[in-house]
């Protein structure tokens, strides 16, 4: 798409295309061509284990109820299937599909907020390995994101450590000091770090 824009712009700059024609051509391309492009056009070759979406984020903390209440309050998330040690917070209502997904076997992404001993053996009895990597923050997409309005909303909710993040987002800390980022769809794999 960028190369198409560049060609049209060059034609305009050299007088081959009028300003009006440039405006019309770019507007048409921007509002139709990208949306019509097949998703597979830019995807990597098929590996044997191709992931479709994040299924869940496993979040462990001292008091799962306290963290779950924070995420429910800030993101209007329901709490589902609470046990003595955990609860799930799906990113939508039962029966809804994740944004952009048409397949019927891709469930809503959800948080599972837990309070468990990570030194205890994992499923299957093997001891858990100590990771040398860390998931240092999570970014969430919210509807109608407007940074200044979002700051005011977060302040009203009592959220701490709210600060700008890059061009399109805000960072904050949750009930346990974990770094949380929010943005609209403008923050995505193409724009982030571009």
């Amino acid at each position: 798409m960028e190369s198409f824009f560049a060609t049209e712009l060059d034609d305009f700059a050299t007088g081959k295309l009028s300003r009006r024609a440039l405006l019309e051509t770019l507007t048409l391309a921007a509002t139709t061509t990208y949306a019509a492009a097949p998703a597979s056009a830019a995807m990597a070759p098929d590996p044997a284990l191709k992931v479709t979406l994040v299924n869940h984020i496993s979040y462990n903390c001292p008091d799962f109820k306290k963290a779950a209440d924070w995420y429910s309050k800030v993101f209007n998330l329901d709490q589902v299937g609470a046990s003595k040690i955990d609860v799930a917070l799906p990113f939508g209502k039962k029966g809804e599909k994740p944004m952009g997904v048409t397949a019927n076997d891709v469930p809503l992404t959800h948080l599972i907020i837990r309070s468990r001993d990570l030194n205890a053996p994992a499923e299957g009895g093997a001891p858990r390995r100590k990771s040398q990597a860390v998931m240092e923050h999570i970014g969430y997409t919210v509807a109608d994101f407007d940074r200044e309005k979002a700051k005011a909303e977060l302040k009203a909710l009592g959220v701490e450590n709210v600060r700008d993040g890059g061009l399109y987002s805000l960072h904050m800390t949750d009930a346990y000091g974990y770094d949380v980022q929010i943005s609209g769809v403008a923050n995505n794999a193409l724009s982030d770090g571009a």
Partner: protein
Amino acid sequence: MEKFIDRLIKQFESGQIGRREFCQTLAMATAVFAGGAQANAAPAGRGFKMLGLNHLSYQCSDYKKARDFYSSMFGMQVLNDKGKGRANLAFGPEPGKGGNFLVVHNPGANPLKPSEAVIDHIAYTISNYDEGKVRAALKARGYDAPTGRDGSRHVYDPFDYDVQFASAAQENAFRREGR
């Protein structure tokens, strides 16, 4: 969109932005426009309407090692890798239209912020999950004995981070209802 492009052309004509910036800005706006149609209005009252996960920020000592693992193992698409210590690994719907991405990066100049919470694993959904094919694919990559159960398996990545991948049948928040 037409007004936006009109302003962009004016900026180009006046020399405020160059050719490269013009094209990049318009490409980004196009992606946002495409995704915006699905962005539903926020509900009345406090809090935000969650549309979904945006990205996961994964810090490790060698982002290239993580990049190669996740792209070759799970088919994630490498984007914005400028060889400067980070890359985006995209998957799912198109960027800006519901797609997720994993940002793999080296440690930055700032130390990690202290937190009492930890993300101890991430689970990914595989559409059309087939246990036999999954086990064969894992074996071909040297994972002879993944933990977990049929339809929900765990492996460790090169930095011993716990990675789960699952079918919708086994991992779905609403399956927990009434348990």
